[in-house]
């Protein structure tokens, strides 16, 4: 078996006295799409945010492509470029065009020339089907388009893994499809992905594995067909019944 891209062991995270993650073990193999579900407050976002150290874990280890993310000697800014993150609220830079949103880190972090950065940014925008919106400002784009620009912004840095935190939850139902479509294509292109979402249909036909989290722990994991059809744990069953109601 190939070495995992992301390997989490014994991950714990407390906010003050409250332990939000209670020993998570999770490995994501190259090109795998792991889907995380779980009730609100179960720690899904915190888990994702620990994976690029937006939250500082309290204990445990995280390896990304063999590099110890929590080692003090690890250059976290360099590592974060490799870990694409997409947020529920898009977070586009409102003062910049779509093109500049995508090219800014290429220019200022990777230090590419403007021409080179814009070529790469246009290619990334093309990948999400928004090449012709390069000159638009975020306020001129629909929610779905904004989220696709946000995906392009992460993609342009050629990440080894992409983390999605409820990428479609802030979208009107009719705009969800375009974002999921882009994510499907990423999966087909062999991107390694860790996705927190409630889009069960997407999980069913794109995920390799589904993880059910509750109270800061992994309760159950299985291929989507299996976990949706016959969950082993009562908590999983209750949650899925609630979702598919």
């Amino acid at each position: 078996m190939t070495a995992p891209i992301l390997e989490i062991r014994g991950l714990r995270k407390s906010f003050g006295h409250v332990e939000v993650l209670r020993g998570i073990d999770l490995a994501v193999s190259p090109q795998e799409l792991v889907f995380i579900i779980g009730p609100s407050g179960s720690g899904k976002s915190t888990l994702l945010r620990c994976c690029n150290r937006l939250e500082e874990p309290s204990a445990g280890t995280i390896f990304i492509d063999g590099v110890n993310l929590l080692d003090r000697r690890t250059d976290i800014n360099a590592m974060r470029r490799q870990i694409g993150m997409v947020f529920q609220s898009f977070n586009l830079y409102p003062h910049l065009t779509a093109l500049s949103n995508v090219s800014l880190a290429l220019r200022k972090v990777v230090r590419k020339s403007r021409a080179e950065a814009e070529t790469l940014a246009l290619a990334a925008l093309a990948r999400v089907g928004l090449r012709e919106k390069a000159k638009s400002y975020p306020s001129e784009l629909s929610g779905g388009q904004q989220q696709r620009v946000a995906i392009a912004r992460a993609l342009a840095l050629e990440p080894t893994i992409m983390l999605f935190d409820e990428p479609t939850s802030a979208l009107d139902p009719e705009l969800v499809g375009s974002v999921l479509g882009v994510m499907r294509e990423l999966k087909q292109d062999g991107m390694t992905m860790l996705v927190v979402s409630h889009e069960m249909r997407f999980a069913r036909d794109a995920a390799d594995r589904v993880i059910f989290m509750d109270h800061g722990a992994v309760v159950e994991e299985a291929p989507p067909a299996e976990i949706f059809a016959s969950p082993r744990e009562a908590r999983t069953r209750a949650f899925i019944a609630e979702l598919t109601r």
Partner: protein
Amino acid sequence: MDAWSRFLDTFFKPDLIRHYLPSIAIGTLTTIEIGMAIVVTGIALGLVLAVVRTFRILPINVILVACVDIMRALPPIVLVLLVYFGLPNIGVNVPSFAVLWIVLSLVLAAFAEEILWAGILSIPKGQWETARSTGFGFFSTLIYIVLPQAMRLTVPPLTNRTLAITKNTALGTAIGVPEILNQATTGQSFSGNATPLMMGAIAYVILFIPVVGLGRFLETRFRWSRA
């Protein structure tokens, strides 16, 4: 003499206009020079202070906030007089225009720092997090993502403050800086006529209306609607 010609004679006496035009012109140039110097150093210092504050080093921020609050609380004239008449007593002689420039720069810096700091705080956390997640460090996030937005948001209050404070260059009269009001009051006391004062007033209007217009322009130019 009817009322209209008495009015003209009091405020717009032709030979006085001719006579005092050169000195009002000199005063206008002086006001422009000091005003521009205050805007540049005041905003630049305010920006530096706001950036320093983002590092949240407690002792530094306590001192910074205390100084800023003092500068904002004191009427500028008090500071001007204090510095101009106080410093010579400890053997420091600062030219009057420099006193005006330094004091008003500090006052503008204090207000600009507060305005820019509020602007920085108003940028959503998600902007920071997104930038950090694409590899930007703290400082470059501030420079490339947060400050550009904060500065656009704060153009209106900053313009207002800058206007209010550069108008305080008129305080130079109290310490003998040859700016517009000083020239005008000198002319008024020599001629016993209000025409030089009216000329000074007109000079201020001519000077500051374009600044107001520039503020309007910047406001629309840099506005973007939030999604």
